[in-house]
């Protein structure tokens, strides 16, 4: 039954600054933050704590009034030091100063055999791990009231400099399996575990039980769960599917086995501007300053929580995003370049081969900065997006439908099947420099809220 899918479209961005597969030492982070902005689709966050309160790992911090069963818990024990709000009192960050030793709230172990689905859902939602379950369409935190037709887990990340999931989850076998067991109870359909068909699959994934293991091979975005769903069991209007990252599966497993909200995870510290790179064990929402300060090769840099295609720019004192398993530090590109649009170069990375773009001759790694290399323009070149989106979708027409706010067209052209990360490569290769991920989100919001 398991499928073996080979994808021909796509593009691997060979960035400089890979993390070697080894653990490196950093001072443990002292402050942590929950960022409501990480949770796409959160409408009215309500904070449950005040500045100065002490919390344990697992104490509820906030919830969304639109979906109040789902609790967002503190990843560490310590003191709430700041509740940061932005314009119009928009909630930005809840900062926690961590204790030296983490103490956990006892959330109660879950015996999967004797627990029925409704109780399991309730416990997962109250146990802080529910936000790891993402709903397709729309790519928002799943609604506990729904039952998905299937659950999809991508066991590899094909993004630039992405962490190796097999390495990251070493030693977490029993939690991973417990997480999978829980997920199989949540759907009457299948749980798909999609592994990288081009590489040796780590035992953790190969030995997983109770799930359908599918192989995907090809360039990025082969590891994107949206692409995988499209080839396994595509989402049509009215369907609901859920996706979980392997890290999320492990955290669900820890709640079940240990009865506590353990938000620790191993992340990759990557990027061409860092001196020391590698993997480090930390906790969700950690301040990244400990990984970055004193570890830089140059001054003018950008710190990114996540990868360079879908990540978010944060400050040097910023915090790791809830869904992010890596930080990337690359040079900032705020410089002018004399005749930059004309000069030939083998060092400037390009998907295209237009005159002077000779990067296809360069088989090495590329050091890429944040310069846009040009200004925004209307769509002119055609047929480019199609080369990096391995789905039976016509991206240009979909984008135009969103710009035109044509609801029928958006639906018919497949907006239910994609979220931002699926068009991240389109955004990268676009010679007209449009912000396509933002565009896709605005289209999704139109479909969701009207």
């Amino acid at each position, binding site marked *: 039954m398991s499928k073996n899918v080979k994808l021909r479209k796509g593009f691997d961005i060979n960035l400089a600054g890979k993390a070697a597969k080894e653990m490196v030492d950093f001072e443990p982070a002292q402050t942590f933050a929950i960022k409501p902005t990480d949770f796409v689709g959160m409408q009215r966050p309500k904070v449950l704590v005040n500045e100065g309160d002490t919390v344990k790992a697992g104490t509820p911090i906030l919830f969304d009034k639109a979906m109040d069963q789902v609790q967002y818990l503190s990843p560490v024990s310590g003191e709430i030091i700041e509740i940061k709000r932005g314009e119009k009192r928009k909630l930005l960050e809840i900062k926690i100063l961590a204790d030296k030793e983490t103490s956990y709230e006892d959330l109660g172990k879950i015996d999967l055999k004797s627990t029925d689905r409704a109780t399991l859902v309730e416990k997962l939602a109250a146990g802080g791990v529910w936000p790891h379950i993402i709903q397709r369409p729309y790519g928002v935190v799943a609604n506990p009231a729904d039952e998905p037709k299937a659950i999809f887990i991508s066991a590899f990340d094909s993004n630039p400099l992405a962490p190796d999931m097999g390495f990251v989850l070493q030693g977490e076998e029993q939690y991973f399996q417990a997480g999978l067991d829980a997920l199989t109870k949540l759907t009457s359909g299948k749980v798909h575990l999609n592994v990288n068909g081009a590489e040796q699959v780590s035992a953790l994934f190969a030995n997983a039980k109770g799930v359908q293991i599918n192989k995907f091979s090809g360039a990025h975005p082969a590891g994107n769960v949206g692409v995988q769903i499209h080839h396994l069991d595509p989402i049509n209007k009215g369907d609901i599917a859920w996706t979980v990252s392997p890290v999320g599966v492990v955290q669900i497993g820890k709640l079940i086995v240990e009865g506590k909200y353990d938000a620790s995870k191993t992340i990759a510290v990557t990027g061409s501007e860092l001196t020391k790179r590698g993997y480090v064990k930390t906790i969700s929402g950690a301040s990244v300053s400990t990984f970055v300060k004193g570890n830089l090769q140059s001054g003018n840099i950008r710190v990114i929580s996540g990868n360079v*295609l879908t990540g978010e720019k944060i400050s040097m004192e910023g915090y790791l995003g809830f869904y992010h398993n890596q930080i990337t530090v690359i040079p900032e590109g705020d410089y002018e370049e*004399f005749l930059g649009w004309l000069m030939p*170069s083998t060092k400037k990375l390009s998907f295209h081969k*237009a*005159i002077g773009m000779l990067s296809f001759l360069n088989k090495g790694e590329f050091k890429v900065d944040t310069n846009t290399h040009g200004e925004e323009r209307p769509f002119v*070149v055609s047929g480019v997006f199609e080369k990096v989106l391995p789905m039976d979708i016509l991206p240009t027409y979909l984008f135009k439908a969103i710009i035109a706010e044509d609801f029928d067209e958006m639906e018919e052209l497949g907006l239910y099947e994609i979220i931002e990360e699926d068009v*991240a490569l389109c955004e*990268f290769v676009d010679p007209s420099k449009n912000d396509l991920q*933002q565009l896709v989100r605005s289209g999704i919001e139109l479909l969701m809220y009207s």
Partner: protein
Amino acid sequence: MKALQNLFDSIKPNFEKGGKWEKFYTLYEGHRTIAFAPDLTTKSKGAQIKDATDLKRVMITVVIAMIPALIFGILNIGHQHFLAIGEEVTWIDKALFGLWSVLPILIVSYAVGLGTEFTFCVIRNHPVSEGFLVTGMLIALVMPPHIPLWQVALATVFAVVVGKEVFGGTGMNILNVAMTARAFLYFAYPAQISGDQVWTYMGDQTPVDGFSGATALAVAYNAGIDGVPVSDALASHNASLGADFSFWNMFMGWIPGSIGETSTLMALIGAVILIYTGVASWKIIVSGFGGAYLMGLVMNLFASNEFMAMAPHFHWVMGGLAFGVVFMATDPVSAAQTETGKWVYGFLIGALTVIIRVTNPAYPEGIMLAVLLMNVFAPLIDYYVVKANKTRRLQRATV
């Protein structure tokens, strides 16, 4: 470079909000971004890095692909001129003469076109786009050498305004802008862009005995009417001057015609550049040539005159088919935009060109009308391709 940057910086306040030339900010920005790729960085959310290719580089690639045709065109204008007046001169003289007649057309096309663009950018306050880099060159290359400069200017203004800006500028147009310019002249001032007299630059000199300025297409068409085999008619044309319309002569391009269109070889060199760099769709180019060939074969089957019976590969080298298929049909904005649609679109351009050439006495050259017609139909082709995609999605849902 620092000095130039400083110069830009020093005049910048005049163009910013509240400055005395604030309306012209878009021109300031346009020039600065030509000198220096801008210092813009990616937004805080979304892709943090971007591809090094931008639209300027895509456009300049097309311009570079047209340079062989331009250089050959300049040489050929001189060559044809001295051939017609029966004078033996060196290649340098021919090149200089060609340059003397081509350069003014090129300058007028660029100057007038860019002026019109800039005016619109200022009025509509949109950024200066790169599209005219290509259009300006294309317009010059499809003009006959004898064209009055004021007509070039008028056609350029018409094409930029009615062909492009009324739709919202680069990327929004329906018709190929350069073809619009040529079609405008064709219908407004036919005397200067059709017939037998305009394809060779004569000045006030008189041609030698036995010289005919007719194009290969006209010769072939007349052969059809007179019932002479086309290959004989082409071979005997200007044979006394050593400038007959043999296949290889036409392939090389040593024949009268518009400045850049005569040489199939140069168009093919351009095609290689465009296909290798991925800027133009190879599907359109291949299916364009294929469509012309197949329609030529169909004409052979139903031949009721000698022109219809002409060997189909002659269509490839006569008139502007090669130039049009390579540089005009592949304009991504006005062409079909779906990959399947590109096959159909290119094929129909090739086929229609041959139909127009062979069956319509009023328009000996068909490529111009074929491209414009298919520009109009491209959205229809795409409509069906897109519909098929939607249907696949819909059928999946019911299974």
